[in-house]
Every structure is written in structure tokens, then in C-alpha cells.
């Protein structure tokens, strides 16, 4: 029988049993009530409780059963599973109806189940993190069984070109052995991130200073959402803009100064990424600067300092932990940014300090490794997970440091809105 039909039968009969359970239990409760006995809960609540006792265990057994079938591959006849689920549902129904007694707290039982469900939902976020970690770690381990970890960390050549031949058992035919030295990828990533930060931190911080300290309220209410628009533009759009508009401009400008620039130069994605990140820095810095207590500003002005000196020497240093925290978050964001570099940066691993040359990044190689027609078990595909693992570790540490810093700031000035 088809899975779909089985599913339909299962849910249909469960629905029917549920309906029966509801009306049986409600009827019983209503009769008990009519006889003058006071009960702990409403008849409806007894009804719902019985529905849960009928459907709950059956659903759990069904889910576990099909899970085992699907994953472990154990041979459980689907019809047997269906039948056992329905039997369990019937037992649940009988037990549930039997529990409809005046001294039974049906409402509390329901609430316990609801609470259980809510807590279960909250666990999903934990499972997501675990899922990311485990899926990456397992595949990364498979990669490191093929390639040395040390070479991966310190190698300066990234040349996965021939690895698919090895996977096919034809290693000898490859012109050169595959090399997975990630240094040039990280060099490219950090270079582009560095350029992005050179754009984003000064502009973002200064814009935040203007909004928090100088701007009239009207300008502020307009400027903040306008800056947020920058953060709302999809990265694929930025990538297109960097590749089609900004990169040719940079090539032309470089040519004007007699320099040679690649059309996949690191400058274009770096600058555009920096612009994308401006609102991350300005928004958080603006909040932090605003929560520096006003007494600091009054105290410094009362000493005969100019507004500029007050901002530079008192307000910004006081807000520094928050600003650093915002910058770290921005760095983490830039390191993991994918579309802009995939579209505007190069594919060639290139260890250089010249931002006009093309260079590639970790995320570009992850995408390249996973979109080719490679067999999943090949070293090149798995290398994506090894790179992903590094990326995860770096961004996670940056995020944690940033959270700790913002917490320090919050404790120092006892502000709660950050």
C-alpha cells in the first residue's frame, strides 16, 4: 500500500477515535455533574484530556516506528505499525474515559501537556544549533580522515582540482595531487572583511554619533529607518551591484592611476559589504551612545569642554564596550557573508596583500564545492564542511565575546534596553 494511503488511514481513524473520545468523556462528565457532584474541571476539559490520552501515545508510537523504519531500515510491516498505533489509541481512549472522575484535575493535566509542548518547541532552537554543529563536525571529521588537519590549517595551496579523480579511484591519472591548504582562503576572507570594516566602522560610528549627539529629533527619526533600509537589501542584490557597477568603477579608477586591477578585485566586494554593514554598527552604537547617562555629558560640559571634546573623550570611551561589541558582531557577519563574495570576488585562491587582485574566500569555496557535480563523499565536497567548521568556530567565538562585552556595559550603567 502507498505511504500516502497509510497516512490518510492513520490520521482518519485517529481523528474518528479522537471525536469519539471527546464526546464520550464530555458526556460522562456532564452526567456526573448533572447528578449533583461537583468536579474539579469543566466537561469540555475532560473531553480534551481524553482526546490527548487517545491521540498522544498513538502519535508518538507512529512517529517512532516510522522513524526507525526510515532510518535504521528495520523491517516493520507498515500495516502492523498502523494496527498497533490504533490499538494503543483505543487503550488510551478507554483509560482516558475511565479517568473522568470528580476528583481528577483534567485542567491541570492539560496544562502540563501544553507546558510540555511549549518546552519542546523551545528545545528546537537547541537542536538547530546541535544540528549545525553535528552535521558540520561529522562531515569535517570524514574530511580530516582523508586530509591532514595540519596541512589544512597551514597549507598555502588550495587546489582541490584533482580530488574527484581520487574519489573515483583513479588518483594516478590526476596531473597533480589535490591540496587543501586553507591559508589563502582565510587570507582572502580577512582581507575582504578588513576592507569592509574600514568602510563600515568609521561611517557607522560617525553616523551614530551624529544621530545621537548632533541631529535634531526630526532628522533622527528619518535617518534611522533610512539606514535600516541598507540592512534590508538582500545580499544577492549587493553582490550584483558590486560585480556589475562597483568593480568596473574600481578598475577604471585604478587604471587612471596606472594600476592594474582585476574585475574580481577584493576592493569591490569589500566596499559593498562595508556599506551593507553600516547599519549594524550605527544602529547598535546609537543605542549604546544614547544609554550613556546624561550626567556624563553635563559633567563634562560643566567643566568648560566643547561638545566635540565631550563626545571624543567622555561619551565614546564610556560607550566603547558597546561599540566594540557591535564591531565584533559586524566582523562575524562579514566573515560569513556569502553572496557578495560569490558574485563579486574571484574563485582563485590567491595569497596577496594587494586588494586590486582577485582573491577568494572561505564562503566562496564552500559554495563552489557544494554546487559542482561532485560525488558527496569526495574530498572537495567534504572540504566545504571543514571550512564551515572553521567559520562556525570563529563566528561563534566573536559572538560570545560580543555578548559578554555588551553585558558588561549593561551592568556598568544599569540599562536594560540593550
Amino acid at each position, binding site marked *: 500500500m502507498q505511504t500516502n494511503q497509510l497516512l490518510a488511514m492513520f490520521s482518519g481513524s485517529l481523528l474518528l477515535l479522537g471525536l469519539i473520545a471527546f464526546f464520550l468523556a464530555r458526556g460522562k462528565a456532564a452526567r456526573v455533574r448533572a447528578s449533583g457532584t461537583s468536579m474539579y474541571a469543566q466537561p469540555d476539559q475532560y473531553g480534551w484530556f481524553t482526546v490527548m490520552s487517545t491521540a498522544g501515545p498513538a502519535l508518538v508510537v507512529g512517529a517512532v516506528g516510522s522513524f526507525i523504519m526510515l532510518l535504521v531500515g528495520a523491517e516493520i510491516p507498515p500495516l502492523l505499525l498502523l494496527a498497533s498505533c490504533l490499538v494503543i489509541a483505543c487503550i488510551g481512549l478507554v483509560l482516558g474515559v475511565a479517568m473522568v472522575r470528580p476528583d481528577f484535575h483534567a*485542567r491541570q493535566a492539560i*496544562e502540563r501537556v501544553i507546558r510540555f509542548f*511549549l*518546552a519542546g*518547541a*523551545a*528545545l*528546537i*532552537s*537547541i537542536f*538547530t*544549533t546541535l*544540528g*549545525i554543529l553535528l*552535521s*558540520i563536525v561529522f562531515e569535517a571529521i570524514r574530511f580530516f580522515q582523508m586530509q591532514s588537519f595540519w596541512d589544512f590549517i597551514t597549507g598555502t595551496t588550495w587546489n582541490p582540482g584533482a580530488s574527484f579523480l581520487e574519489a573515483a579511484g583513479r588518483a594516478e591519472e590526476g596531473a597533480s595531487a589535490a591540496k587543501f591548504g586553507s591559508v589563502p582562503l582565510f587570507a582572502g576572507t580577512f582581507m575582504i572583511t578588513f576592507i569592509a570594516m574600514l568602510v563600515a566602522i568609521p*561611517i*557607522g*560610528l*560617525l*553616523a551614530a*554619533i*551624529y544621530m545621537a549627539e*548632533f541631529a535634531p529629533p526630526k532628522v533622527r527619526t528619518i*535617518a534611522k529607518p533610512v*539606514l535600516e*533600509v*541598507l540592512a*534590508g*537589501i*538582500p*545580499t*544577492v*542584490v549587493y*553582490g550584483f*551591484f558590486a560585480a*556589475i*557597477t562597483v568593480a568596473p568603477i574600481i578598475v577604471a579608477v585604478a587604471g587612471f592611476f596606472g594600476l592594474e586591477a582585476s574585475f574580481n578585485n577584493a576592493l569591490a566586494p569589500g566596499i559593498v559589504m562595508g*556599506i551593507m554593514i553600516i*547599519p549594524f554598527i550605527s544602529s547598535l552604537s546609537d543605542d549604546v551612545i544614547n544609554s550613556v547617562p546624561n550626567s556624563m555629558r553635563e559633567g563634562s560640559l560643566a567643566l*568648560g569642554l*566643547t*561638545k*566635540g571634546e565631550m563626545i*571624543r573623550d567622555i561619551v565614546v570611551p564610556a560607550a566603547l564596550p558597546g561599540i566594540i561589541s557591535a564591531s565584533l558582531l559586524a566582523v562575524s*557577519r562579514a*566573515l*560569513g557573508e*556569502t*553572496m557578495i563574495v*560569490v558574485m563579486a570576488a574571484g574563485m582563485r585562491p590567491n595569497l596577496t596583500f594587494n586588494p586590486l587582485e582577485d582573491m577568494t574566500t572561505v564562503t566562496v569555496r*564552500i*559554495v563552489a564545492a557544494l*554546487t559542482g557535480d561532485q560525488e558527496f563523499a569526495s574530498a572537495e565536497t567534504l572540504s566545504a*564542511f571543514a571550512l*564551515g567548521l572553521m*567559520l562556525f568556530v570563529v563566528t561563534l567565538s566573536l*559572538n*560570545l565575546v560580543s*555578548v559578554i562585552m555588551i553585558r558588561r556595559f549593561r551592568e556598568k550603567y544599569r540599562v536594560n534596553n540593550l
Partner: protein
Amino acid sequence: MRQSFDDISAQLRARHRRSARLKWASMGALGLAGLFLVLFFADMLVKGLPAFQQAQIQVEVDYSEQASQIPLAAVQEDVRPLVSRGYLRLIPGRMEDNPDLLGTSRMEWVLADGQVDQYLKGHHAKLSNKEMAVVDRLKEDGRAELRFNSTFFSSGDSKMPELAGIASAAMGTVLTLLVTLAVAFPIGVMTAVYLEEFAPDNRFTQLIEININNLAAIPSILFGLLGLAIFINFFGVPRSSPVVGGLTLALMTLPVIIIATRTALRSVPDSIRHAAFGVGCSRWQMVRDHVLPVALPGIMTGSIIGLAQAMGETAPLIIVGMVAFIPDVTNSFTEAATVLPAQIFTWAGEPDRAFIEKTSGGILVLLSILITLNATAVVLRKKFERRW
């Protein structure tokens, strides 16, 4: 002897200048960001608006016996290279559907080739001098013009720029976001309700909270790796399908919805909770009947913003294979599909210059949807904003 005002003012001059410099610099920074935004939108409009127009030419179509075999024969030789291949290919089919056409011939406005379109828009086009002359003549006779490009909105992807459209990608986006919303909204709201209203303040709860904040900052591409390794390789969800894309995006959207819902719940004053407890509500009844209805606008706003974010996301979808070439609009959750940003990405990689225009046009559509969504969220928030 203490200094007089004039002495001090004289000393202050340089310091005031420095202060003013900071003010101008900071104002300039904000202006620079704004200027970039203006330049960006102007650039996209200039590049993308022409995509909403497409060249059509009026030619004589000859529905002869020969044309039903070799469609090229339906038009005269001099305009043959100027008519879209995609249009010509349809001729035999039309003749089969409508046998009366056989043997007739008439003047028709037909879709022009992409190069003619580029030529008419004044861009560089790969046309021979002779072909250009033909187009020029047609144009003088009023038989070649730019018309509204309905193909762009009604058809799927194509390798021929004049036939490429966003319909299949738009459908894929809708399907994917439906999955995302169906998964992320209930789980997100439930998580937030649990954390705000039920959870005891212990280490475990703190762990969940830190984890959620962290999840919001993990690079999106890693979610793609998760989707590939867990959903596709482990659970066997079909690759490239809206289901796998939607599930992946749901995990990314989850923290946004959770954080927004928690903020909304927190802004409900405790007096409402106390009042509900006071009339004998249980905790769940209090949440369901009193807190959630009040917090609903905030939850909706957060969800819309989360959805808009998911809608623009590309990197994880590339990893789970949603960059497929989808020429026909499908409405299946399990078949291969693509989404708007992925379509933009695919087009951006096409070597044909005409696709730059298509890409920018797609970007304009995507941006207008995103702006509409965000504006809705803002309006919703303004409308239901309550001060307690």
C-alpha cells in the same frame, strides 16, 4: 589673576573648530550612507526599468504547410533572425490547435529577438549591419517598438533573454515561504511563550536564551550546510524542493520570530496578568485569552520582518540546490524549484548582456515586495502601538 572671558574665548577658538569638524564629519558620514542608498536605487532603476519593456516587431506570418514542419519558414528571410526563436517554435502547435490557420497569412506583432530588443534600447547588440538596417527600416515604418513586457511576469526561466521571466521563481518563493511560515511561526511563538510566561529562571533557560541569540548571528551559509547534511542526506527530503528550502529558512527565521514575540510579550503589562490570575484563570488560560491577543500585533510585525529577511536569503538555498533551471511554473512542494533571489543569482551569472537588464528587473521586483512587506510591518506597528 583669573582669565577674562575674552582671553578664554581666544584660547577656545581652535577647540571650537575641532568640535565643528567632528560635527561635519559625522554629518558627512550619515550623508555618505544616504548618498550611497540614492545611488544604489538610481543605478538599479536605470538598469532594471527597461526590463519591463520588450521589443516587438510586426511581420507577415505565413501559416503554410511548410511552416508547420519548419517554423522558420513562417516569416520572410530578411526578418527571420529578428524574430524570437521562442515565438517561432510555437507556430506548429498553434496550427495544430487551430487548423483554419493553414494556408492563411497575416501581419502580426511578434516578440522580437533579444538582440533586436537591446538594439532598440540603444545598447550594444550582436546584429550584422544588414540586420540593423532592417530593424531601422521597420522602426521607421512603425513596425518595431517597445511594448510592456508581460512575458517577464508570466513565464519561467529561459536561456533566451526575451523569453525569461520571474513567474516560476515567484511561485517557488511563495511555496518556500509558506513552508517557512508554517514551521517557524508556531514554533517561534511557542518558544517565546514558554520562555516569557512559563520557564523557570534556571541555567537551562539561560542556555536556551544564549543559544537563540547566537543562532541569530550564525552565518546563513551554515544553515545551508545543516539543510544539506540533515534534511537532504539524513532525512531524504528531495533536493532543490520548496520543502527543504522552506525548512532551512524556517530555522533561520526562528530566532527573529522568537525575539520579536518575546519583546511583544514583555511589553504586555503585568497588571493584565495579575488581573487574569485574579479572576481565577490558569496560567495557560491567562496567556491564551489575555496576553497573546494583546501581543498579537507585535508578533505579526516581527513575523513579517522575519519573512522579509527569509525572502531575500540566497546562500543557504544555493547549498540545498534551489538554483535549478525552472522553465515552467510548478506548484509542487517536493519538485525542484527556484526562488526570486536565486533566480537573480542565476541571471547575474549569464554571459549575455541582455540578462543584466533582466537581473536588475528581477531585483526591482524583489525590492518592491520587500519594501511593501516592511512598510506593512511598520504600519501595523504604528496602528496597534499602545502605550501603557
